[in-house]
């Protein structure tokens, strides 16, 4: 049976998901800075306040730790809070609550209470903004025990992963690639649409080299593959769920070509690419026919935006990595 779909932008898919999930479960509420009256600075929450009222789409005081901390208490009162952090770098004040409490409270209750908090935030660079509107902070989140993390790279996944997060009994963080909020469009299933956490997605099939990416690096890698047309047959794996991780898909994609480059926008040291490379170094060592390369942001403060393109992984850098793998 064909599923009805609609063409939506990535941010419209987020909005569609929120409408559907708030409709579906009246314990779901949305809270954050400017999510209500304004519908969010990217309009991800537009229309929710009108439809569900100011008690289910709440403009909070300007205090990220307070937002996440009160969300913990809201869970204890039976709510499923979907928390918006306005921007990646403005989520840092909430890290203390995240590490100290959100990731540990279920454990602390001996499994007695659940903390089904969803934290969603726009992330990533390339948007020509003043500093601190460009970070890729997934390491801080994924390194934290008790937390799950997913990052969509398509409109359909933006809806499906967010729905999975909201319905998940554990705290889940969703990073939304803001660079593609309005530029990426795609067919999105109407109504119920859940993409389970822990399942990677093969974006392109190929035989020579494997690219592994997530979020806004996926369309970038597609660009690189297009640029390599005729030169190499490239497999592209979209990890999309960082924790839980689809290790089988990772190992299969690596084994298929034996040549792997991992592309990540965040700074390199202890980025998620390091985790993926470490897994390969442990579990795919006999399959590897070349070094595992990482193409990443650099370990420097995210730069002034006139030169941000030199900071971000680029088609050129990915193409270069693929060529180096082929030449090895």
């Amino acid at each position, binding site marked *: 049976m064909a599923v009805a779909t609609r063409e939506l932008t990535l941010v419209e898919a987020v909005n569609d998901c929120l409408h559907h999930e708030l409709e579906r479960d009246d314990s779901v*509420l949305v809270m954050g800075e400017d999510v209500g009256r304004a519908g969010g600075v990217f309009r991800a929450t537009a229309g929710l306040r009108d439809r569900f009222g100011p*008690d289910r789409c709440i403009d*909070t*005081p300007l*205090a990220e*730790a*307070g937002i*996440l*901390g*009160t*969300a*913990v*208490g*809201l*869970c*204890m*009162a*039976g*709510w499923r809070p979907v928390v918006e952090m306005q921007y990646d770098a403005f989520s840092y*004040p909430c890290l*203390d*609550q995240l590490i*100290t*409490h959100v990731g540990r*409270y*279920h*454990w*602390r*209750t*001996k*499994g*007695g*209470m*659940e903390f089904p908090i969803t934290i969603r935030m726009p992330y990533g660079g390339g948007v020509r903004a003043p500093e601190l509107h460009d970070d890729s902070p997934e390491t801080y989140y994924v390194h934290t*025990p*008790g937390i*799950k993390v997913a990052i969509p790279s398509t409109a359909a996944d933006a809806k499906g992963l967010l729905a999975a997060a909201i319905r*998940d*009994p*554990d705290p889940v963080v969703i990073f939304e690639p803001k660079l593609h909020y309005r530029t990426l469009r795609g067919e999105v299933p109407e109504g119920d649409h859940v993409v389970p956490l*822990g399942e990677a997605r093969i974006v392109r099939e190929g035989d020579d080299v494997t690219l592994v990416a997530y979020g806004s690096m996926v369309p970038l890698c597609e660009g690189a593959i297009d640029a390599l047309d005729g030169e190499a047959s490239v497999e592209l794996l979209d990890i999309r769920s960082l*924790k*839980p*991780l689809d*290790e089988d898909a990772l190992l299969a994609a690596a084994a298929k070509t034996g040549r792997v480059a991992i592309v990540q926008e965040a700074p390199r040291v202890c980025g998620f690419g390091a985790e993926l490379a470490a897994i390969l170094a442990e579990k795919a060592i006999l399959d590897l026919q070349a070094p595992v390369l990482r193409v990443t942001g650099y370990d420097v403060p995210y730069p002034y935006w006139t030169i941000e393109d030199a900071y971000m992984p680029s088609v050129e850098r990915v193409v270069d990595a693929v060529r180096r793998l082929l030449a090895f």
Partner: protein
Amino acid sequence: MAQVLPAERDLRRVIGDGESVPDGEVDGLDESDFLELYRSLVLLRTYDERSVVFHRQGRIGTYAIFWNHEAMQAGAVHALADEDWIFPSYRESAIGLLRGIPAATILQWWRGHPTGWWNPADYNVASICVPIATHVPHAAGLAWGKKLRGENACSIVFFGDGATSEGAFHEGANFAAVMGAPLILFCNNNQWAISTPLEAQTRAETLADKAVGYGMPGVRVDGADVLAVYEATREAVERARAGDGPTFIEAVTYRAAPHATADDPSAYIDAERVEQEKRNECVGRYERYLRRLGVLTDELDQQIRGEAADAMRAGIAAAEAEAPADPGLVFEHAYVQPPPELARDRAELRRVLGGNEG
């Protein structure tokens, strides 16, 4: 423009010293309330004093002493209904005793044994909060969440004078005020944060003054006066239930014991002041009050103290009878639906540990 509500700067007191300061009374308390409060005080005191001994004997780990803090805990809890939630800090580790959590459970917490943790929903007592002030937003969220659901419950959060310096206190208090959450912010002002005295913590004349900045009432009570604490909390609870939002209570006392068993306060504390506080400590003060009232007899006192001692004897026995924890619990309850990696790790650990056993 509405008038700002300045902190009530006078320390509220009910219980006198039997001589110069006359006793007051609190409306609506009958003899059974008086004795219930006494039972709570004695239970907490016994728990605390025994715990210090257990620590010295190596039977529990590091322990945060709450000697002379019992009146704040017992008085406040007496003003709550069972559906109201309590958010304790480590200083109120044993407050759950007043809600029926067994002494063994709390002793196990200090013994680092998994049976020391409980399901908060079973007692409406949140987990003991170890990091300073970070539970203030939790309590605000719970109270707000109950209100959103149309339930009548409120919540109370306990924290110290030092905690008022943390951002988490500020954000939680402000959220509670803005959301009109039925929350009682209960500040145990024992005038020390480990070795840091109150005057190095704030320049506010009183901690209750902080309430002004959140647009909520702030009151000050003598923290060693269980009846004053009860009365102030009862008023705050009434306000909360009436939909009038949060209240800040500053209970003023003095830390008459080390911060914790690992602490040696001799380097920084005023020993004379400690002695003075000890002479006027909260359990004895209330006991004398009850005796003046004629409510407490020697016999009753013996019985209440005996019950508390028995509870502690049974508690430590039960704790020590518990089998050692299964190391496999390391992987338990990290997630409701754990990532597959955890099962692999658990199997690996079992293999390695098993290899040793074999």
